[in-house]
C-alpha cells in the first residue's frame, strides 16, 4: 500500500524500518543522514532515544549510539541533556553547505567521476526501461509530481530532483534498480545535486525533467537515457569545477542560505 505514503509517512516508516545485513552502523548512519539532508526529518525535530532507535531499527544499542555520535560530529544532530533532553536535528542550509563542501574537498576527482559513472549506469538504464514500461497513467502521475515540485530554493530543487529520479526508477519496474537508486541518493544525493544552488541550474534541471517526461511519452528510451546521463555528467563536471575553486580559495564564503553559488567561476 505504498503509494499512499510515498512522500510522507511512508518515507518516515522506511527510515525507521528495521535494517538487515552487514555494516549496520553505516546503514543506520546513512539512512538518518539521508533523511535529515533530504528534509524528511525536519530541523529541530527530536529523534527517538538510543534505545528506542535501536529497537526500531533492529540493531544493538551500541550501534545506534555510534551512529548518533557520528551524526553529532557531522553537525546533523545536537544532544541536549536533562529532562527535555535528547537528540535533535540541527540541519539548516548553512550546515548543509559546509558539510557538503567538506565532503567535496575530501573526495578525489577520480572518486567524483566514478560516482557519476555508477549513477549514470543506474539512472540511465532506469530511464531507458521506464520509457518502455511507463503507462499513460504513470506518465500523468509523473507530470503531476513535477507540477507540484517547487524549484524555488536549492533544498526544494534537490528534494524535487531526488523524488523525480526515484519515480522514474520505480517506472522501470525493477526492484533492484529502485533499491540502488535509493542507496545512491542516500549516499550522494545531496552532494550530486549541489549545483542546484544556482538558480540557472535549477531552471535547467526542470527543463531536463520535462524533456525526460516527453521522452517517456514518446517511448523513446534512448532519448530518456541520454537526457539522464548528460544531466548527471553536467552535474559531476560542476562538482569538479567547484572543487577546484574550493581548493584555490580555501573555504567558500557562502552565506548559509543554501542558494549562493560556490563561486561565480563555477560553470553554468
Amino acid at each position, binding site marked *: *500500500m*505504498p*503509494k*499512499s*505514503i*510515498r*512522500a*510522507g*509517512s*511512508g*518515507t*518516515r*516508516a*522506511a527510515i*525507521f*524500518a*528495521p535494517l*538487515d545485513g552487514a555494516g549496520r552502523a553505516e546503514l543506520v548512519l546513512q539512512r538518518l543522514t539521508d533523511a535529515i539532508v533530504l528534509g*524528511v526529518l525536519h530541523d529541530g525535530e527530536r529523534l527517538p532515544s538510543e534505545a528506542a532507535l535501536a529497537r526500531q531499527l*533492529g540493531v544493538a544499542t551500541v550501534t545506534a549510539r555510534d551512529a548518533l555520535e557520528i551524526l553529532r560530529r557531522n553537525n546533523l544532530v545536537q544532544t541536549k541533556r536533562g529532562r527535555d533532553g535528547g537528540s535533535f536535528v540541527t540541519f539548516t542550509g548553512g550546515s548543509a553547505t559546509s558539510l557538503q563542501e567538506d565532503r567535496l574537498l575530501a573526495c578525489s576527482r577520480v572518486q567524483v567521476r566514478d560516482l557519476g559513472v555508477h549513477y549514470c549506469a543506474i539512472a540511465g538504464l532506469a530511464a531507458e526501461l521506464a520509457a*518502455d*514500461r511507463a*503507462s*499513460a*497513467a*504513470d506518465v500523468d502521475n509523473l507530470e503531476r509530481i513535477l507540477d507540484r515540485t517547487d524549484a524555488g530554493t536549492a533544498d526544494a530543487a534537490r528534494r524535487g530532483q531526488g523524488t523525480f529520479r*526515484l519515480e522514474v*526508477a*520505480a517506472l*522501470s*519496474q*525493477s*526492484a533492484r534498480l*529502485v*533499491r540502488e537508486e*535509493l542507496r545512491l541518493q542516500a549516499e550522494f544525493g545531496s552532494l550530486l545535486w549541489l549545483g542546484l544552488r544556482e538558480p540557472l541550474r535549477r531552471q535547467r534541471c526542470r527543463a531536463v525533467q520535462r524533456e525526460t517526461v516527453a521522452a517517456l511519452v514518446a517511448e523513446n528510451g534512448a532519448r530518456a537515457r541520454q537526457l539522464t546521463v548528460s544531466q548527471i555528467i553536467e552535474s559531476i563536471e560542476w562538482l569538479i569545477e567547484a572543487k577546484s575553486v574550493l581548493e584555490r580559495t580555501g573555504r567558500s564564503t557562502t552565506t548559509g542560505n543554501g542558494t549562493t553559488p560556490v563561486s561565480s567561476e563555477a560553470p553554468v
Partner: protein
Amino acid sequence: MTIIPEQKTPPTNAWVASIAAVFDPVFARLEQWANLVERYGARPGSVAERAELDPLVERLVIRAFADSDGTVIGAGFVSAPHFLGWHLAWWLGGQNAASPRLPADGIRHLETLEDPLDENFRDYTALEWWRVPAETGRRHITGPYVDYLCTDEYTLTLTLPVYRGVELIGVVGIDLSVDEIERDLVPLLGTDAVAVTVINASGRVVVSTDTHLATGALLRLPGLTRLLADPAPTDAAVGLHGAHTFQWCGRTGLAVVAGPAADRAPD
C-alpha cells in the same frame, strides 16, 4: 481465404479459472473483513473509533499472515476520511525484507502520517487502489509495482470497498508479493503450445510463460489498448490480432492473453 480467429486462437477459459483459483480465496478473505468492518460501522447509536476498530482489524490480518506462506506482504483497512479520519489500520508481515528482525509470524503496524495539514501528507483517495474500487464498487487489483518506501518488494495490491448502507467508509486490502504469485501462477499456465500472459488493466505483464515477456513490461499487441479501454467489457473470450485470445478475469482488473510467443529477431 480468411482465417477465422475462433479456429486458430487458444481457449482461455481454463486459464481464467486458474487465475481465479489463486485470487478468489484472497478476495473471499477480504469479503469477510469487509463484512466485519461493515457490521462494526453499522452498530446503531455509537461512534466508530480507531481504538476499537484497529484491534479488530489486527486480529483479522494476523490470521492472513499466518495462513499465507509469505505471499502476504501487508494487509488491513484504510478508512474514508469522514469515517475514522485519515487513517490506515495496516500491518506488515514478518517475512518481508522490511521486517527481517521480526519472527516469521510477527507483524508490524505501519506508522503513517495522518495529519492532512502536514506538507508531506498524501491524499490516498486519489490513488488507484482506493479510487477504482470506490468508483466501481467492486474488487480491484493494483500493480505490479515496486513498493519502494515500505518494503522494497514487487507488489500487487488487492482492494475491496466497504460500505455503511450506500456510504463508502473505506477499503480493505492485501498486498501480495509478485514473486510468490509467480510461483503459484506459472505452473497453472504452463503449456508448451502457446504463451499465456496475465496482464493488468494497463496492459502490464503480471506473469507470462513467454520467455521474452518480462513481468512489469507492457504487452504491446495491435487492438489491445482498445480492448482494455472498452467501457462495456465482456466476460467472453475475444479474438485479438489474428492468433491471440483475450479474456478478462472476471472484474478483478486482470486479463489473460494467449497466443504465439513474441517474435524475437535472431542476433
